[in-house]
């Protein structure tokens, strides 16, 4: 079976593929291309490392407890009758 898409098309689809926004059919074509093309495969890995890093680094920040308490207090005040 030959590739349904070439490297150029694969580059165009890469962003949507990694965001899981391709149709199943187009995603399958992309996955098949990545299995066959080392160059596109490593470019995809490169983008994945970047995205994973961003996700990990951003998720380390949490809402400070003092702010949570302030918000809960403000909501309680909002709910007080009258």
């Amino acid at each position: 079976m030959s590739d349904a898409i070439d490297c150029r098309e694969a580059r165009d689809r890469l962003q949507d593929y990694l965001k899981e926004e391709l149709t199943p059919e187009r995603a399958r074509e992309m996955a098949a291309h990545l299995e066959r093309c080392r160059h596109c495969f490593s470019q995809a890995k490169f983008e994945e490392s970047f995205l994973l890093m961003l996700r990990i680094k951003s998720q380390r920040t949490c809402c400070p407890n003092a702010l949570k308490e302030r918000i809960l207090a403000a909501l309680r005040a909002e709910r007080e009758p009258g």
Partner: protein
Amino acid sequence: MAEPTTAERQFDAEALPHLDALYRVGLRLTGDPSQAEDLVQDTMLKAYRSWRQYRPGTNAKGWLLTILRNTFINDYRRRKLEPIATDLEAIEPHAIYRNIEEADPEGAFFSQIVDEKVLEAVDALPAEFREVLVLSDMEGMSYAEIAEALHIPVGTVKSRLFRGRRLLQAKLYEYAVETGIIPARKGAR
């Protein structure tokens, strides 16, 4: 104290779990922890007051982030006016992948950069790129959700995300070369 009503319980269950995400996005939008705190609190109160407009079961996180972003634009951005890039579409960042595909083809250097530097680089992006990148790549929102929150077409979301990522990668690459995380290319200026 009175027992919470059903609506109040629903609000607590659906909205409160997103405080971390709201705070993170607030930080990236304002660039200032105390403004981010005020922004999140204002957002939660607004959300609570208009809770009846929220359809249960729809995307609470997307709805809250939309309120946060609108509040930011209306009440906060004025304080520190950000220059709006006039010709965003003209920004064609260079793909750094070409520079590095031999030395580090799988981008291992990204994870060696300290958190603070990464967040600084995100904060330095043009606002229009930054908000799309934060919602997509830090908070995991889909193209459609981002388009709705920012009132822009999906195509614009995609192209801003593409450019924002490239700009950020270029910045991080530059930093990694400067600090010796990756060796400078032979023959590179």
